């Protein structure tokens, strides 16, 4: 059938176009960047970054506009709800916070700016599709768009051996995990005859439900795939190597954006379609949560490379979010959403500092290299202090409130042991975060701190904005919390 004779009811309505506005804006901008790159090459310099900044800000406006017109689009493939809007804003903000410090980074490493920004935008598009999709194939497509762009970004410095290793590992293990996820989708389709999450849920709870064994198998396979994407134990092995090898701004990005989006689909699939068999998967998530927190925190204790340490810390934080999921309540979903927002801000901020300090060729990545930073660059040190206290979970930061809210949800679901062990874990974690503060403030400046360049405007904004955001989330969490609460009840 020729394209122009498509039945009228399949043409997107104007409302449907509004609902995918952010994706459209970002895709157009990403394509434009690639075309410009072909014409201008390196001469475009900072222009590429400016274009992607404008596109990302426009995408936020688009998201808000789409969020005001909630509803399904394209036959229920996409579902623009509060949940989707929340995560769309989150991943786009992550994109912005990655673009800001990357100006300096790309100049310093004399890397191609055009492709970098195009790939970044495409990755964000993929994440936006993931968090909006309400259908397994759509989710899969979003996941792949996001992942493939991230794989390339991880190896963006193509002459750097560590980046190559990182990219290859990320790609191989990522594809492997995607395979599991796809098997899960296939089995779900096989037993329910649908890939639409709402329909799948309807079949599972219906009068003639499929055997819980097969639903469980599908859930387990998807759990493996998603567990990899969010780097929760026992699927966390790749994270330290990939995080360490990837260029630091990219590490900042993949530790926040793809992870948040993967958690979004994790929550959406398990809390809607697979919620009816929740009692069966709950022990699985429980163990994964505890293992992630424990492995992440205890492995981080002995790291000397900051990027590796933050990688293990991000495994531990994945564990905290899984605690919220184990609660299997609306409060739990809201807590996970809030925590992911706080986590994204504090983690990106921490990585931006690493990117700033490590210097050209990323030579200074060890904890010792932070020595005396507090004397040389008080603003950088002050913001990193906020990020570290937020990662520890000290009150008046978003990290604390998020943790509080997660464990509150867990206790409401009577997960007393998980709560106690999780909280004790966060006391263990304090040790390795404090090591960075010790270095910054209590040691004399070393080589790295002596050689550190002044902050660029972009880097400064990428530090001050998340720091301010963390304090706002910690002192006035109401607005975000209310939004998360309303979005989470909408999800079910």
């Amino acid at each position, binding site marked *: 059938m020729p394209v122009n004779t498509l039945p009228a009811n399949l043409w997107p309505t104007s409302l449907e176009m509004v609902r995918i506005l952010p994706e459209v804006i970002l895709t157009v901008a990403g394509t434009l960047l690639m075309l410009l790159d072909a014409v201008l090459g390196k001469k475009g310099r900072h222009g590429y970054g400016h274009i992607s900044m404008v596109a990302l800000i426009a995408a936020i406006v688009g998201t808000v506009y789409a969020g005001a017109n909630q509803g399904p689009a394209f036959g229920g493939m996409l579902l623009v709800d509060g949940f989707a809007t929340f995560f769309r804003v989150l991943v786009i903000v992550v994109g912005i916070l990655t673009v800001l410090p990357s100006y300096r980074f790309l100049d310093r490493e004399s890397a191609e700016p055009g492709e970098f920004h195009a790939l970044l935008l495409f990755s964000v598009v993929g994440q936006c599709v993931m968090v909006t999709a309400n259908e397994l194939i759509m989710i899969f497509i979003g996941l792949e768009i996001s992942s493939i762009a991230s794989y390339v970004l991880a190896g963006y410095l193509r002459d750097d051996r560590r980046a190559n290793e990182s990219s290859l590992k990320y790609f191989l293990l990522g594809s492997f995990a995607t395979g599991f996820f796809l098997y899960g989708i296939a089995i779900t389709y096989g037993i329910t005859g649908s890939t639409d999450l709402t329909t799948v849920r309807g079949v599972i709870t219906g009068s003639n439900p499929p055997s819980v064994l097969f639903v469980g198998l599908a859930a387990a396979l998807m759990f493996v795939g998603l567990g990899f994407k969010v780097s929760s134990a026992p699927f966390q092995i790749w994270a330290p190597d990939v995080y360490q090898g990837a260029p630091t701004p990219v590490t900042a990005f993949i530790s926040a954006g793809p992870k948040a989006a993967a958690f979004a689909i994790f929550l959406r699939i398990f809390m809607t379609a697979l919620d009816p068999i929740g009692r069966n998967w709950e022990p699985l998530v429980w163990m994964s949560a505890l293992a992630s927190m424990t492995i992440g925190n205890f492995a981080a204790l002995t790291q000397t490379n900051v990027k590796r340490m933050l990688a293990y810390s991000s495994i531990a934080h994945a564990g905290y979010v899984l605690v919220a999921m184990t609660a299997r309540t609306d409060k739990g979903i809201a807590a996970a959403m809030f925590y992911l927002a706080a986590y994204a801000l504090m983690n990106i901020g921490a990585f931006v500092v690493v990117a700033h300090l490590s210097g050209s060729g990323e030579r200074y990545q060890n904890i010792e290299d932070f020595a005396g930073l507090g004397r040389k660059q008080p603003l950088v040190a002050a913001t990193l202090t906020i990020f570290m206290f937020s990662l520890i979970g000290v009150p008046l930061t978003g990290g604390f409130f998020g943790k509080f809210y997660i464990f509150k949800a867990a206790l409401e679901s009577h997960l007393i042991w998980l709560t106690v062990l999780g909280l004790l874990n966060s006391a263990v974690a304090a040790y390795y975060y404090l090591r960075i503060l*010790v270095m910054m403030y209590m040691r004399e400046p070393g080589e790295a701190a002596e050689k550190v360049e002044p902050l660029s405007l972009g880097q400064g904004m990428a530090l001050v904005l998340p720091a301010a955001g963390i304090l706002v989330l910690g002192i006035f969490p109401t607005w975000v919390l209310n939004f998360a609460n309303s979005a989470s009840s909408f999800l079910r």
Partner: protein
Amino acid sequence: MSLLNLVLALPLAGFLIACFIPRSSASGSRTFALLLSIATFVVSLGLPVAFQSNYSGEQFLTDVVWIPSPEIHYHVSLDGLSLWLVILSTFLTPICVLISWNYIKDRAKEFYAFLLLLEFGLVGVFAAQDLFLFYVFWEVSLVPMYFLIGIWGHERRIYAAVKFFLYTMAGSVLMLAGIIFIYNRAATFDYPTLLGMLSAGKLSFSPAEQLYLFLAFFLAFAIKVPLFPLHTWLPDAHVEAPSAGSVMLASVMLKMGTYGLVRFCLPMFPGAARDCAPWIVILAIIGIIYGALVALVQPNMKKLVAYSSVSHLGFVVLGIFSFTQLGIDGAVYQMLNHGISTGALFVLVGLLYERRHSLEIVDYGGVATAAPWLSTVFLVTTLASIGLPTLNNFVGEFMVLQGSALVNFKWTIFAAIGVILSACYMLWLYQRVFYGEAGEEVRHHVPDLSAREWAVVIPLILMMVWMGTYTQTFLPPVSKATARVIEQTNVNVPFRVQYPPLNEMRARVEVGHAR
């Protein structure tokens, strides 16, 4: 805006302003910190003036919603329990600024900023009446102290700072779990409301729940006190901290633990508290004697004072877990006494260190000839610390011992050994440092008190005498508040043997005498 809010707002504003003072002007930041902390102290003096000591409820109350869901209030108020601890914090902060005047040269601006933040946290801890808010202040006070020790401390400062942070954090996360558990049951963090619900029977915990909750809170407080065997962070933190840090740590931060015991552990979990009391009292007595014995053999002055704190705080815990009006009154009074006298000891040790650059006792000797006034002041403080009548510690220790004697006389006997030992280690310290032949170093490098130092020690000495001779100023509001605590520990424990009220006990003692 109530006076209490002003007392909270001033140090916080001071912290924020201090952050923006240019780095080059070190004297600017210390002058600013001094003026601001004095202003805070003067304002805080309005609290006891306006305090109605015959009213046992909350005063200077502010209760506004901070976060609507889950409902968290900014609820601060004072009663007799917290009033003097707030004054103690505001009283000691200017003193800490003054003793750091010449000592802190490196990164002075940050130092004074953290000191003001610490004051804010401490006042907040004592004023908070919402469990969540309490936890926030509890942790917030941890951060500046961590930096004070870690940046401006002595050689092993980093080890000490990290140990201090981790110990406190490990204890407090369990308290957080307890707080959340209570919220999920009662749907409120508001402490007076919780107590109201408990006494009205609308909220109750099973014995097992009560025990675990009690232990969760108790562990956090016991680490802070510190109760034997959780005290090992304290000597490290004290020895490594700069003088101002040691003073704030010993005088006020340790009281956060004992205050928490009286304020939260006893009224909320009376059954578990009574069940555990014998064990806790044993730990407290071990702490009293062990702390004193270890202090006896310390070659380092700060370590000696630190271990003496372990011993003194044992008395406080003993008083609290005697569950008698007299014992708890004495414990609260002893918290204040210890704050003044041990604070003064750390100040004076700090003055010696500034002169001689050593904390080892062997490096001194004969200071009395080189600096007679300094020695006199040290002597008064020593005598206060060992509990000489007419000086402050005597009153508190006496009340605690009497209170414990009403319950179990054996406790009193063992605890009294601590009093004797305290005389041993303090007087021996005094003898070794101040008497004997003055060495070359001491003669040339230990001048007497300067005007600034006089300004520091005079208020401390005056307070020791005042609190030792005219307790009437301080005790009535304390007694009102502790009476309420005791009343609260008696509700909802119907199946327990209760100790007879004080009067009856007295009557019985008198009957015994008559025989």
